[in-house]
């Protein structure tokens, strides 16, 4: 299927090239313009759309350079991360670059240009970009050998898992759970910080999580990074074609589909817990709670702004009983940042800070649309902030409570006095932090008093201490909602029956009195 699709694409491409060549002969006398794109028109488009990041000279030094991670590609070096030519071939296929221009790269600032540019215009850009590395005449010499694709199956996944975990191939960087929980610090060719991909979040893959794309990455590696080629016969870790398909199928199977962001899911639904609230982050009852996953965005509103986040989503579950509410926050963080810890200092951007997470709630549940300003409240709408920090080698983890009326007006309060408690755990690249607080507190003026059945605005923030995040440098969510779902009650049924009875009674009375009037008249 894939092969025939490929063949079709090649034929199509050939046709386009032929057509292009014929047109070229018709309209110009200049010899052999590039087969499928016009570099001169590409230059015009490039200078309007691309220079801002990639720079006028194509060396990745556009105005945005310092604000982006990954940094914009340097085209002068002619090294491409995502390509389908052989691992030892620098030159990509035109189609590889065309695809990146067309679809963009998730998790980066590179958008898909198909929204603004025509097919031809994108080919023109591809043609122009090649000139930066002097590739306009170069043709790739080798291609990835895909052999015959092995469709996914439990056997293939099991075989892939074994290869993934054995022989120091993948686990060293991607971690046993595939979440990229690092054991060493990685750098790209431009000395930029790189993090191994979290394979459980396929929506962050730069070039899709189609098994064929994953096979391509395993085969060619990712040039310019420490991701090596596993097709290189000189490598001790070389994998056969069949083995690479198995690993690709295993990687696809790692996706944590329960934690995909769903734009419709904006309400954290806390159900009533039977008995006591879960006291640990791994209590089995959490599996029954409906997870809500929200996007984390860097704090770019207040000074100093923060541009290069590493955390991208946070998953929240909640439960409550007649005494307290429990919120379980879960997010993937590739490093457990405990300042003073030797490994943590080595992996992170030393000196590292503590990891952290915070919950923001209004002090008063709004009765109308108006909420506190989402960036830490405002003068008339204070917020409660519960902040957990992971601790250092010298000090244990901490929980802090503060009331804020904007960035600058923060009052530190006593978390213990409000009954705020925490439990945390770090496992294979995932933090889980459990906050518990009584539904009501002694200080109703300053603490949110939880109420059943009310929509309570809630927002979150997270800090990755290994990514230079501390203070105002962090990621955050916008306002979402939390709802303590009341246990099912018989009230609605009772009222419905009552209304039914009254209505029927009224109708009967009407009919009867009409009949009585009729007999009277008769």
């Amino acid at each position, binding site marked *: 299927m894939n092969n025939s699709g490929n063949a079709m694409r090649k034929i199509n491409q050939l046709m386009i090239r032929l057509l292009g060549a014929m047109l070229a002969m018709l309209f110009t006398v200049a010899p052999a313009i590039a087969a499928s794109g016009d570099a001169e028109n590409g230059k015009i488009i490039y200078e309007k759309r691309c220079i801002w990041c990639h720079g006028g000279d194509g060396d990745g030094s556009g105005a945005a350079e310092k604000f982006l991670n990954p940094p914009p590609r340097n085209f002068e070096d002619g090294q491409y991360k995502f390509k389908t030519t052989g691992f030892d071939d620098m030159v990509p296929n035109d189609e590889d670059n065309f695809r990146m221009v067309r679809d963009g790269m998730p998790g980066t600032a590179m958008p898909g240009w198909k929204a603004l540019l025509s097919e031809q215009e994108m080919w023109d850009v591809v043609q122009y970009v090649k000139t930066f590395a002097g590739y306009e005449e170069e043709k790739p010499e080798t291609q990835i050998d895909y052999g015959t694709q092995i469709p996914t199956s439990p056997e293939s996944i099991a075989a892939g898992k074994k290869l993934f975990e054995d022989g120091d191939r993948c686990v060293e960087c991607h971690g046993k759970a595939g979440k990229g929980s690092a054991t060493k610090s990685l750098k790209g060719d431009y000395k930029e910080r790189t993090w191994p991909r979290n394979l459980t979040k396929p929506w962050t893959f730069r070039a899709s999580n189609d098994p064929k794309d994953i096979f391509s990455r395993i085969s060619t590696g990712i040039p310019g990074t420490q991701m090596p080629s596993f097709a290189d016969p000189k490598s001790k870790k070389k994998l056969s074609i069949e083995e690479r398909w198995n690993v690709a199928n295993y990687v696809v199977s790692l996706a944590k589909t329960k934690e995909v*962001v769903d734009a419709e899911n904006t309400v954290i639904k806390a159900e009533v817990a039977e008995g006591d609230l879960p006291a640990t982050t791994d209590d089995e009852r959490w599996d029954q709670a409906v997870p809500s996953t929200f996007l984390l965005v860097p704090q*770019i509103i207040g000074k100093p702004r923060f541009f290069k986040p590493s955390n991208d989503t946070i998953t929240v579950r909640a439960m409550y009983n007649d005494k307290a509410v429990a919120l379980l926050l879960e997010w993937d963080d590739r490093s457990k940042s405990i300042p003073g810890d030797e490994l943590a200092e080595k992996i992170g951007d030393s000196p590292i800070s503590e990891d952290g997470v915070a919950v923001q709630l209004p002090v008063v549940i709004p009765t109308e649309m108006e909420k506190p300003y989402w960036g830490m409240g405002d003068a008339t709408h204070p917020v409660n902030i519960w902040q957990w920090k992971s601790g250092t080698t010298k000090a244990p983890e901490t929980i802090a409570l503060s009331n804020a009326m904007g960035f600058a007006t923060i009052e530190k309060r006593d978390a213990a006095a409000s009954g705020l408690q925490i439990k945390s755990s770090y496992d294979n690249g995932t933090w889980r932090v459990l906050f518990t607080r009584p539904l009501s507190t002694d200080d109703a003026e300053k603490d949110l008093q939880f109420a059943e059945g009310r929509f309570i605005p809630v927002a979150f923030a997270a800090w990755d201490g290994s990514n230079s995040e501390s203070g105002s440098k962090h990621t955050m969510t916008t306002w979402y909602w939390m709802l303590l779902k009341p246990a099912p009650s018989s009230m609605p049924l009772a009222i*419905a029956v009552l209304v039914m009875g009254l*209505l029927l009674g009224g*109708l009967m009375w009407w*009919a009867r009195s009409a009949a009585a009037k009729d007999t009277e008249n008769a």
Partner: protein
Amino acid sequence: MSMTKKRLIPRLLQFALVIAGVYFGFVLLFDVILGALIPKSLLSMYMFFVIAGTFMVFTCTEESAREMVDPIKALVEDPSKKIVRNIVYAVLPLLAGAYIFTSLQLSFEAPVELRSIHPAPPASLKAYGKRFDLATLENPYRKLEKSDPEKFKKLVFEGGEVYIKNCQYCHGDRLDGKGPYADGLNPTPLNFQDVGTIAQLQESYVFWRIATGGPGLPKEAAPWISAMPVWEDFLSEDEIWKVILYLYDYTGMRPRSWKHE
């Protein structure tokens, strides 16, 4: 009891059909065609006015009112309609009961927040320690577009650099409101490529929106959820005017102006 004239569809049924037609029309338009679920509270508000209006039309003369009421009276009072009456008496309370029961169930749908996207601007705005009169405020560089195109081009380019360093995270490289972090924000960032945004606005309005950001919005535009920073704190007056040039130049839109209208 004399019917004024025989109709193909009785008035009462006409009334019911009109209401049902409008209701499903709304659902079809919003949920199916526009692909944006119409919030229940909004739909009930619309339907309240539709029912009230239709009722007024159907009962505007005494005759038409009678036409509406007579079949109902007949149903209750006419002994020959006993079977139909019994059926209606069984079904009506059941429907009412079911409606009450479902409407008393707690909804887990997020509350709807209706906000004005382009609220009316104030007469003047305070920024950079001075007052700007929005009625007369103009982009000081706009005139260079004709008088000095080379200089103008350079200013647009400088505006582009301001944009890419500050605005693309949310509004996007393509200026279509789909920057890398757009999906994590609510409301989502404005799409400048849309003909309904900057093309409808004067440059003074855009200056106001940039300089004072989310917190500078009036209440009807829900300033508390906007992620737009107060750019007065980050950019100079000059940089804002240049970035405005870039927004219009890149998208090929023209600012509105009192002069040309």
